[in-house]
């Protein structure tokens, strides 16, 4: 499992390279006499994938250039865009909340992926210069469709910090109980510890609010209360911290302009934007069901950021991923979930809920070898959904494959521990409103749309139609355990 830099020609084109250990491959103590640099497919990075040669040709269809000079784009309905444009305003405290881009406002007749949206809330541009009017507007508040509609002053009332948008997500908590998500940042900065009772009141992260709402180890016997789907905020990456080498796609831990740390999945990685779409849709759906999914953000990556990165592998990824990428809130100090220990503390109902969720989303990546579950603050967290909606990698119409069997569910790490999947089906399916698939699809950024978002909405709608064969399939797999 050494880093071979397979896509770095300078380092890999030599014989007797130690092979990637694999059960079916060479043993670790056996030298390998082959050129590992000759890999036919470069997995890491789109930009380095060898392209088939295409012969140059000109097809003359006899259209005079003047005839097409003034023709507009393909005739299709575009989203309504408000005439007023967003302005950038200074925010008194840029470390406060975030202002996001995606606003949900659906009308059944709209294109499912093209939401009618009000003017985007203004973006923060750093601290206001002292000689300007600093606080003419309210800061970015909790995730409201339009921040300017919010009553002013809440941010100031909380010590100048805006509320984290997640404040809206804890449905069982009143606004008075909510506090800025400063705790994690303080902890990260080497500040106070967050053991119970040691931290000042009002310095509680959203995750702890969640934990308080449903206390106990791993935690709730059941999945937490469902939460409304809200938009995904956008942050800008400011610093590359460390590569995460678990998987093949080399996500990176990055700091963003809200001081948060995010595990960034790059659009330019091997699986491309489709993996980000899967990550986004599954993550947001999982959270709306009440499962523990770290917050997702869209991470704007400036192409200048990677210019001086010395690691060629990382630089290639950064170079190939300008624009929006996906960020998963980093859970500092999280431990890997191990079935031997974790299952004892995980309720059978919650395990069944997670199996049902993965069956619904056709997620092949929750196996004993690679559970993609974390233990953090006494709760199980679901990460890495890039392999969900695996049907999307096949050619053809996505919706037509929505009812295809999903035999991979028998490898699910929690299946041996899960309670009835059919009961989980009865519990969870009613939590998904009929509008959810289209709302989810509307979150997909334009630059990720290798397939039309409507395809994903249709796929999920058909998957949710009862009777849901995937639930029966998972239940049968459980019975054979």
């Amino acid at each position, binding site marked *: *499992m*050494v*880093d071979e830099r397979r896509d770095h020609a300078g380092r890999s084109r030599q014989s007797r390279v130690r092979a990637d*250990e*694999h*059960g079916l491959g060479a*043993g*670790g*103590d056996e030298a390998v006499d082959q050129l590992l640099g000759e890999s036919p497919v470069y997995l890491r990075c789109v930009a380095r994938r060898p392209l088939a040669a295409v012969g140059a040709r000109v097809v003359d269809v006899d259209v005079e250039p003047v005839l097409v000079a003034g023709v507009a784009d393909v005739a299709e309905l575009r989203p309504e865009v408000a005439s007023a444009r967003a302005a950038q305003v200074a925010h008194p405290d840029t470390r406060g909340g975030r202002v996001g881009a995606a606003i949900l406002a659906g009308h059944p007749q709209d294109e499912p992926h093209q939401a009618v949206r009000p003017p985007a809330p203004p973006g923060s541009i750093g601290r206001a210069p002292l000689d300007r009017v600093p606080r003419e507007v309210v800061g970015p508040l909790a995730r409201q469709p339009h921040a300017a509609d919010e009553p002013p002053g809440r941010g100031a009332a909380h010590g100048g910090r805006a509320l984290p948008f997640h404040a809206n997500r804890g449905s069982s908590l009143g606004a008075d109980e909510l506090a800025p998500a400063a705790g994690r940042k303080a*902890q*990260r900065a080497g500040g106070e*510890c*967050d*053991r119970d009772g040691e931290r000042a009141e009002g310095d509680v992260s959203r995750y702890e609010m969640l934990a308080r709402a449903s206390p106990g180890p791993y935690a709730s016997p059941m999945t937490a209360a469902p939460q409304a789907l809200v938009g995904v905020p956008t942050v800008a990456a400011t610093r590359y*911290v*460390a590569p*995460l*080498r*678990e998987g093949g796609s080399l996500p990176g*831990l990055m*700091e963003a302009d809200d001081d948060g*740390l995010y595990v960034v999945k790059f659009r330019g990685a091997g699986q491309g934007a489709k993996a980000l779409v899967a990550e986004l849709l599954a993550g947001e759906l999982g959270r709306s069901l009440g499962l523990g999914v770290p917050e997702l953000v869209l991470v704007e990556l400036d192409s200048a950021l990677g210019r001086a990165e010395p690691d060629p592998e990382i630089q290639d990824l950064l170079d190939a991923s300008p624009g929006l990428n996906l960020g998963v809130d*980093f859970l*500092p*100090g*999280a*431990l*890997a979930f*191990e*079935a*031997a*220990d974790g299952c004892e503390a995980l309720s059978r109902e919650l395990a069944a809920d997670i199996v049902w969720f993965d069956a619904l989303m056709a997620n092949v990546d929750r196996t*004993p*070898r690679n559970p993609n579950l*974390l*233990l953090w603050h006494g709760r199980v967290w679901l990460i890495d959904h890039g392999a969900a909606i695996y049907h999307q990698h096949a050619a053809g119409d996505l919706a037509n494959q929505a009812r295809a069997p999903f035999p991979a569910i028998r490898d699910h*790490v929690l299946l041996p521990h899960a309670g009835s999947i059919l009961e989980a089906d009865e519990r969870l399916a009613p939590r998904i409103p009929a509008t959810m698939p289209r709302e989810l699809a509307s979150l997909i950024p334009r630059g990720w749309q290798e397939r039309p978002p409507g395809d994903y909405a249709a796929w999920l709608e058909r998957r949710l139609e009862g009777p849901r064969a995937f639930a029966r399939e998972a239940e049968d797999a459980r019975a054979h355990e």
Partner: protein
Amino acid sequence: MPTNSPFQYAVLRVVPDLERGEFLNAGVVVFARTLGFLAARVALDRDRLTALNPCVDAEPVAERLATLERIAAGDSHAGPIARLEPSERFNWLVAPASTVVQPSPVHTGLCDDPERMLEHLFARLVSRPP
């Protein structure tokens, strides 16, 4: 005369804060394929861990290390990974990780007694220097 056999080893590190990247050696895994040997030995020095990060809760970390030791030993009660073949278990144990317990890069050596090598590496790499 004992014959030397190749072995592979990795150090198990505790990284309480991934951003800072500071780590503490807390275990060593030795795998000698030709001798059919796979074992880990772990020890968590809580004082040194607390010195790295006073906020870290040592208990779950120690449990995690103990689980890895049981998986290396092939304890049949230690979950599905522990029931795999030794080479697969070793691969799993040293697969790159970004959580609090992470393996070091794997390196190799020659030994005639892997058990003694495990003790040797544990003393050199994990135990507190005298």
